[in-house]
């Protein structure tokens, strides 16, 4: 085979690989800073009350596409704590502007030691929000704790903060989590 033909083929292969490889690059997207827990096994303190306990439980562990069975993350039930803990709460926090809040209370470098997810009942219990909406917010706050940022590019993920109707992570979130841990 002539060298010219060989080079043409190699250039074509390079171009096709760049095109097909774009989804690989998306693994790097929608990361929240460099934050992550030390490893995939995380102490899970569901401090929710009433139906919020169930909502957190469903989003974290029991729904078929909940964070814990759907991704490589394993949430180990635990009481409240400050080391390798993801804590989930709800409360009447007032007119704050936020329906849900994820807070990294304690970090060491990029490693999250103590993360807290909170659902604001002052808004969520006003009658304007469905259970699906509440699940969406819970799913997103927990996803933040694991190291994911908002994703406004897809409408089938709870990491989209402009909708409240997709209470589950999608395949992209799963790939991203599994590439982090």
């Amino acid at each position: 085979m002539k060298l010219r033909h060989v080079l043409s083929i190699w250039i074509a292969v390079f171009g096709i690989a760049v095109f097909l490889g774009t989804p690989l690059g998306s693994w790097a997207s929608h990361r929240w800073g460099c934050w992550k827990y030390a490893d995939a096994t995380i102490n899970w303190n569901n401090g929710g009350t009433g139906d919020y306990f169930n909502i957190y439980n469903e989003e974290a562990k029991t729904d078929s596409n909940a964070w814990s069975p759907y991704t490589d993350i394993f949430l180990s039930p635990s009481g409240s704590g400050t080391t390798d803990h993801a804590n989930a709460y709800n409360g009447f926090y007032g007119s704050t502007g936020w329906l849900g809040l994820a807070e990294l209370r304690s970090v060491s470098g990029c490693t999250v030691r103590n993360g807290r997810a909170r659902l604001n009942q002052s808004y969520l219990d006003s009658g304007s929000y469905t259970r699906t909406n509440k699940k969406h917010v819970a799913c997103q706050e927990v996803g933040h704790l694991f190291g994911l940022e908002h994703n406004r590019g897809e409408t089938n993920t709870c990491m989209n903060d402009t909708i409240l109707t997709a209470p589950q992570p999608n395949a992209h979130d799963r790939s991203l989590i599994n590439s982090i841990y």
Partner: protein
Amino acid sequence: MKTKYFLLGTIVAAGLGLSASAMFSWQGHQTAEQAEGKIACETDMPRSAAVWKEVYSTPDQLIAGVDAIVLAEAFNITPSRIARSEGSSDEVPFELVAFRVNNPAKGAKGEELIYVERAGGMDSKGREVNIDIDGGRFEIGKSYLLFLKKQEEGPYFYQINDQGRYDVVGDELKAVGKIENDKVKEFFENKTAGEGLRTVEEKIRFNLDGK
């Protein structure tokens, strides 16, 4: 050329292509601040995130959706209430920021001072709780363009979301929101404070005239 060299070269070309695409995508997802080297370390990134009640697609929606728009200077910060999570010892402290109103574009007309309550500050055990989804702690003596809502149950204002605060740096507005391709944020970013305020006033006037 021998077949084995041809195949080897093809595999190398494919590998380089995949690597290049992954690299481009990674760079594309850096924030503008990271690309400019303003964020030296990723651990400087915000440590809180939220689902905001209101997220706006256009500046017009933001302007229509808030109760007050002011160019104001922070002059005092005091501890406010502490909210407790249901059935647990978890606390969210709040602080009250007093602003001297320099230019009211909407609401707060005739008011010299306004008070904005935000999450953050000291909990009941004296530990600092750093909640920075809204741009973080205000700095006394610095000016801000703020888009505010009245609290439903209290006398204070709150910042509508992370699209609702622009720090005045030099004379330019700097957005605090980190979401990329946010049309609202991009609209105000890098305008001078005067331009930002004038634009808001023009849009309000246009909407009033339109009605």
